[in-house]
């Protein structure tokens, strides 16, 4: 539904160049909720603003619903009528709502319809319908200043939907809201995604947003997409940074006399009493250093960091057992452990001599 290829954006100011996007390839499938996460300055905002060409990419292409927007844009800074028409099919929701303070709630929702040239009566009907959909039918005559943050964002969402878009872009839509309101807005986005088959591309710095509504996610750092895929796949990928961010597990890195293993449960495996089986089968003591469980897209998912006594070499069999049970087990800091562990071992041996 949304595809970007080799998207690059370079800002030039006073001879200095800042690369905000560095060859971003993104593919958002129809009907999914796609979350782009990353820290401030990672290029998320630039990315989403490039999707409807509010920001002109320096190079690369963007296509939405099979239409190459970068080709429509032309060379100038101004948006031509073809691009403007394409934009009417892409709704956008903003962090700070961006509602017109001089218009009532209903008139704010009517604004995109005015741009589309819809007649007065139809505009009003459609606006009231949408306000009903977002649960604000009684606030039609209020001014934005009289609403709470969550209500303003609902108006923002109703407005974004007025042109019957296929795609909704959400630029940190919940970042200015409190946790409770965030949940209700995310729920609304999820419902809209399901009911209207709306494709949603959202950017956020909150992992919880990805956890609660995203089907797919991408992690951005320094203008690049570091990881991307469906949330389920990401969780099943060994060493996935996103999985670690989604389910942070505490605990220290292993010493030489113990082995720390990160275990990821998904679906059916999450309900099995694996840890106690492990302890009984191999007669070992297991300490749990950290754990996180949650429901992602209706599936039980969890991560756990456990500690087994003895170095890695002694624990190959128990780790193999965990993998047989359909879990992912990774030895924490495996690469370094192999390296350092070996040399440490040598040193202790030499010391013993």
């Amino acid at each position, binding site marked *: 539904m949304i595809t970007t290829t080799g998207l690059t954006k370079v800002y030039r100011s006073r001879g200095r160049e800042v690369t905000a996007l560095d060859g971003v390839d993104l593919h958002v499938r129809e009907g999914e909720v796609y979350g782009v996460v990353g820290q401030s300055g990672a290029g998320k905002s630039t990315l989403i603003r490039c999707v*409807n060409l*509010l920001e002109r990419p320096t190079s690369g292409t963007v296509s939405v619903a099979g239409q190459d927007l970068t080709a429509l844009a032309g060379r100038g*800074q*101004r*948006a031509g*009528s073809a691009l*403007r*028409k*394409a*934009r*009417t099919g*892409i709704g*956008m929701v*903003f962090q*700070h709502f*961006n509602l*017109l*303070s*001089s*218009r009532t709630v209903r008139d704010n929702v009517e*604004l*995109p319809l*005015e*741009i*589309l040239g819809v007649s007065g009566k139809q505009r009003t009907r459609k606006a009231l319908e949408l306000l009903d959909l977002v649960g604000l039918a009684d606030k039609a005559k209020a*001014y*934005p*200043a*009289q609403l709470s943050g969550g209500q303003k964002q609902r108006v923002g969402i109703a*407005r974004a939907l007025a*042109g019957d878009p296929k795609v909704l*872009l959400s630029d940190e839509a919940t970042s200015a809201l409190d946790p409770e309101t965030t949940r209700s807005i995310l729920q609304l986005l999820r419902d809209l995604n399901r009911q209207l088959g709306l494709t949603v591309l959202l950017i956020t710095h909150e992992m919880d947003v990805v956890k609660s509504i995203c089907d797919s996610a991408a992690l951005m750092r320094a203008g690049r997409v570091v990881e991307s895929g469906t949330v389920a796949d990401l969780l099943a990928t060994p060493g996935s940074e996103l999985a670690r961010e989604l389910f942070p597990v505490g605990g220290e890195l292993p010493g030489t006399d113990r082995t720390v293993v990160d275990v990821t449960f998904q679906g059916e495996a999450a309900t099995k009493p694996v840890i106690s089986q492990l302890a009984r089968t191999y007669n070992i003591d297991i300490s749990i250093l950290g754990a996180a469980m949650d429901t992602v897209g209706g599936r039980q998912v969890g991560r756990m960091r456990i500690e087994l006594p003895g170095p890695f070499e002694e624990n190959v069999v128990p780790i193999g057992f965990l993998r047989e049970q359909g879990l992912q087990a990774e030895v924490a800091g495996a690469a370094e452990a192999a390296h350092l562990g070996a040399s440490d071992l040598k040193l202790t041996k030499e010391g013993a001599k």
Partner: protein
Amino acid sequence: MTWSEMEPLLEQACWDTLYMVGWSALIAVVGGLPLGILLVLTDRGGVLQNVVVNKVVGQIVNIGRSMPFIILMVALISFTRLIVGTTIGPEAAIVPLAIGAIPFFARLVETSVREVDGGLVEAVQSMGGSTWTVVRKVLLPEALPSLISSATTTIVALIGYSAMAGTVGAGGLGDLAIRYGYQRFETELMWITVGILAVVISIIQFAGDFAARALSHRGRSSTAAWPWLSRGPKRAEETGPVAKVAEAPEAP
């Protein structure tokens, strides 16, 4: 001088002032509004970014703003004759008044329009709105309370300029105060004139502030236009857009 002698003079002067200020304010608004908006749109990062146009228009506005009105009036004499066919009387004063007020109002418009949140412009662009849509649906309505305050400031400044219009025989209250009050030592008449000017300016300022408040929906209270009627502590937002008048530049 008795009242019966003063009365017709004052009446005529009032009408002259109203006539000159009314027309020149109207022309200033019609001319200054697009100019001010153009300055915002063509500025760096604006919707129609164009450094050359911005610099040229900005420079013209600056020159117009910095010109002392009495000099402008004299300098424009031949232009005035071209436009209204005469260089004396109220009609002849309207031309330099309007031309002096256009850049003054344009700068105020620029400040007002610049206050509009850029996010709103972006929102309308994301809906497929054109530059014209942005101006008509966002910049003008959102800046309206502030624009009304700017127009009020311009009208008050024009009343000040119009005192100098007596130089070209245009009459008006300021001219009356100078010719009779100062040059003929009719102190009484001068003070009456001053009183009338004070009352007129107060009424205009009050009406402008009232209109600006009534049109502003930024505060939570719907009775924002009547702050003395609304209970509870006065909110900062209610006075926000109106308070800008205080920062308005000085009249030349």
